[in-house]
């Protein structure tokens, strides 16, 4: 882009016989602008994702450690996985985990963000440490929580007086206990996104609403919620997608057990790929997981789009 002065601007403007046409940008270049801005981002990631397609390709082979010369087997792996009740068990566990964890994190995250947004002294102190749980890598958080959950010497049973027979990671409780850890780690993520969102809202409508004497709940439902909805949905998208491919702390805490109580899809994929060295089967698992994530994300993104348009209307 040129930075020179275009010539005719000093006052009084000289009368020009033959007006000089200022530089113009052809239409295609103007249209290309957003693409030019976006393409580097796409490329840098597509480059790293090239292996993804290779991984997907494994899904139609029978490639494993004991079968190092893979041949094309079509959809055989898919048929095998889709008729496997373990797979569907994992789908169920994964969905329950994702829905409950994401839902709880949203409710708590928005709640914490709203509470912190009041000008309370308690809130100001806590806001500084809000993000702390995120500072502990999930794989380490799994270790710490594992120690806390231990029935024999864990601090939770000690503090709550549950004795040594209360088992946080029993068949019935394990899924809820790993969800609790997920909530602990990631609620601050939601709270921060939403808090930043709240703080970028225009003030006028709230002042107006205050003047009108609207109740807190009414203001929240009619004003705050619609306006922060896009931020909440971004949080939902990221949390839900990450929950669907949850691995780190579940693996540390239960490795998918007891039985298949916490065997999420990515843990199933881990078993096939890494433990059993059956890459094709593992890839099939992950490809199906990817499809599940893809579809839900697509849906969530379209909801987000609508919400953003609505929010734009509410603000505007």
């Amino acid at each position: 882009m040129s930075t020179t002065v275009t010539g005719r601007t000093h006052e009084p403007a000289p009368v020009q016989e033959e007006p000089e046409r200022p530089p113009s940008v052809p239409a295609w270049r103007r249209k290309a602008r957003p693409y030019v801005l976006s393409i580097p981002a796409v490329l840098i990631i597509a480059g790293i994702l090239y292996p993804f397609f290779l991984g997907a390709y494994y899904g139609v082979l029978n490639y494993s450690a004991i079968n190092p010369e893979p041949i094309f087997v079509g959809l055989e792996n898919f048929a095998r996985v889709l008729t496997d009740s373990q797979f569907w068990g994992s789908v169920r566990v994964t969905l329950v985990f994702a829905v409950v964890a994401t839902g709880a994190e949203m409710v708590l995250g928005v709640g914490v963000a709203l509470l912190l947004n009041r000008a309370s002294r308690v809130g100001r102190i806590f806001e500084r440490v809000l993000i702390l749980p995120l500072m502990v890598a999930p794989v380490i958080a799994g270790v710490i929580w594992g120690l806390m959950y231990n029935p024999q010497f864990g601090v939770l049973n000690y503090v709550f007086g549950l004795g040594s027979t209360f088992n946080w990671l029993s068949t019935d409780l394990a899924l809820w206990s790993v969800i609790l850890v997920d909530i602990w780690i990631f609620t601050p993520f939601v709270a921060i996104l939403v808090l930043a969102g709240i703080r970028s809202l225009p003030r006028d409508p709230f002042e107006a609403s205050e003047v009108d004497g609207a109740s807190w709940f009414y203001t929240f439902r009619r004003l705050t919620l619609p306006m922060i909805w896009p931020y909440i949905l971004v949080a939902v998208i990221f949390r839900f997608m990450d929950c669907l491919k949850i691995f780190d702390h579940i693996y540390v805490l239960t490795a998918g057990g007891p039985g298949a109580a916490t065997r999420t899809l990515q843990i199933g994929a881990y078993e096939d790929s890494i433990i059993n060295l059956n890459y094709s089967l593992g890839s099939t698992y992950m490809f199906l997981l990817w499809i599940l994530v893809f579809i839900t994300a697509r849906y969530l993104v379209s909801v987000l789009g609508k919400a953003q348009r609505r929010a734009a209307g509410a603000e505007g």
Partner: protein
Amino acid sequence: MSTELLPGRRRFTLTSVLADLALLAWFTFALFPILWMVLLALKTSAEQTSTYFAFSPTLENFGTVLSARGTELTSVDFTSTLITSVVSCVGAVLVSLIIGVPAAYAAGRWKYRGSNDVMFTILSFRFAPELMVVVPLFVIYHQIGLFDTRVGLIWVLQLVTMPLVVWILRSYFQDLPEDLEQAALLDGYTRRRTFLTVALPLVRPGIAAAALLAFIFAWNNYVFALILTGNEANTVTVAITKFLGGGGQAYYNLTAAAAVIAALPPLILALTIQRYLVRGLSFGAVKA
């Protein structure tokens, strides 16, 4: 103008006390495991699982962790993994910002054909289960010499940081009134200058939030760093788990001490950045 946006002024009503209590409850839950980790970091090996709150605290574990230099426990200098993590995470976030912010701007500002598809593509990179890509990625990294390098880490961390940066910032750009940039264009500034001097400063809270979260997520990433690096470019998260030991002795106390140390850089970053998050730069007034 009111200093607070949402319900109530500063007064000691029942609601505000209840709200403070709710906050207190949340933060008890949120901070207890952190406290527990810190206590663990102060315990000796003999006391690590046989004591609760009464023990003889020692700072020895921190010394052991920081002086771990390719010795029996970790095979890497803990401090050098800290540096690797700082360099690669800062690098990854910077790359994501430099490349991702324009993309977020394009998506937030213009409705161009395929804009949603581009955004969705960027997002979909996050879908790929790590384990699915990591084996082929390992081979390719070997072939092109990125294995066990910080550059390689920075690249692969784009999978973590880029979608976060782009998607968070898009919302902010969408919310930014177009008129401001248009005014600047008519003031005679090029689009680039307009973007840099008008749009960018106004989404600073968004950039702060996105950069911080992206940094933390990159910092905490485990699988990529585990598989794609060795002694040269191990990250601190990988190094922490090495203190878990093996062969019958797990050093939870050392692990906790390492985790406490490893949490400091993101914590410092968070406290530095939080100013922008907290104040939100009177951003509300931007919108008419």
